């Protein structure tokens, strides 16, 4: 049995395992080192499966304050990379973004629909983090979006496409 099984967490729909790994201080993509585990588990005071389960059950990343959540959101991207890649494939983003951002964005579904049909194949860390910032700044009807802002081109194109779709 692996850690997910022991904690009875489905990583395809539950963000709490990623939140735990963030709390433990995992730094490399897709793994946690023995030293990180030892220090992190000591820091959160968990030395048994029962304590760890209770800790994970209480983790609620979507209720974090803005600063902490931004840090966690960045971690999710970095942890979900493959090896030394600096980008994530868009189908990974499509699966990861909804559980990572939860209800903190009203743009998730429409952005992912746009991404699905766009020629972009991979998403950068800057685009990933900018999406969170965009969600905090721009309303579902794009109130707050400034034409002369400095969003990544991907988000400019998303707004243009969404506006064009509404105009049809």
């Amino acid at each position, binding site marked *: *049995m*692996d*850690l*997910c099984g*022991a904690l009875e967490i489905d*990583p*395809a729909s539950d963000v709490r*395992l*990623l939140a735990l*790994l963030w709390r433990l201080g*995992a730094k*490399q993509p*897709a*793994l*946690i*080192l*023995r030293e990180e*585990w*030892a220090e992190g*588990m*000591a820091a959160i*005071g*968990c*030395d*048994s*499966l029962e304590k*760890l389960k209770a800790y994970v059950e209480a983790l609620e990343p979507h209720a974090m304050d803005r600063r902490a959540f931004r840090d966690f959101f960045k971690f*999710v991207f970095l*942890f*979900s990379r*493959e090896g030394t890649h600096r980008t994530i*494939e868009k*189908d*990974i983003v*499509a*699966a*990861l973004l909804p*559980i990572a951002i939860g209800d903190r964005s009203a743009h998730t579904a429409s952005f992912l629909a746009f991404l699905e049909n766009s020629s972009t194949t991979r998403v*950068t860390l*800057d685009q990933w983090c900018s999406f969170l910032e965009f969600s905090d700044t721009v309303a579902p009807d794009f109130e707050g979006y400034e034409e*002369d*802002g*400095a*969003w*990544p*081109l991907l988000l*400019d194109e998303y707004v243009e496409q969404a506006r064009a779709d509404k105009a049809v």
Partner: protein
Amino acid sequence: MRRRVSSGARRREPEPPTYDAAAIQALFDTWADDVEGGAMGMDGASPRAGVIRRRAPVPTRGTRSGPRAPIYRRAIP
């Protein structure tokens, strides 16, 4: 009349939580899956594992052509 309490007594720090370091290591050993036990693979910690299984193989050579697309439309002031 209230008695004065020394600041040392009032400001006593809570004791650090105690934990069993050996038990923490044992948990790691239960789940660690690399040869030397120095790391625990966490591919299954995100939707990545399931998505990758569903994907077609990605060609690794000869896929890039032409100049890179711009990242930003406008320069950051």
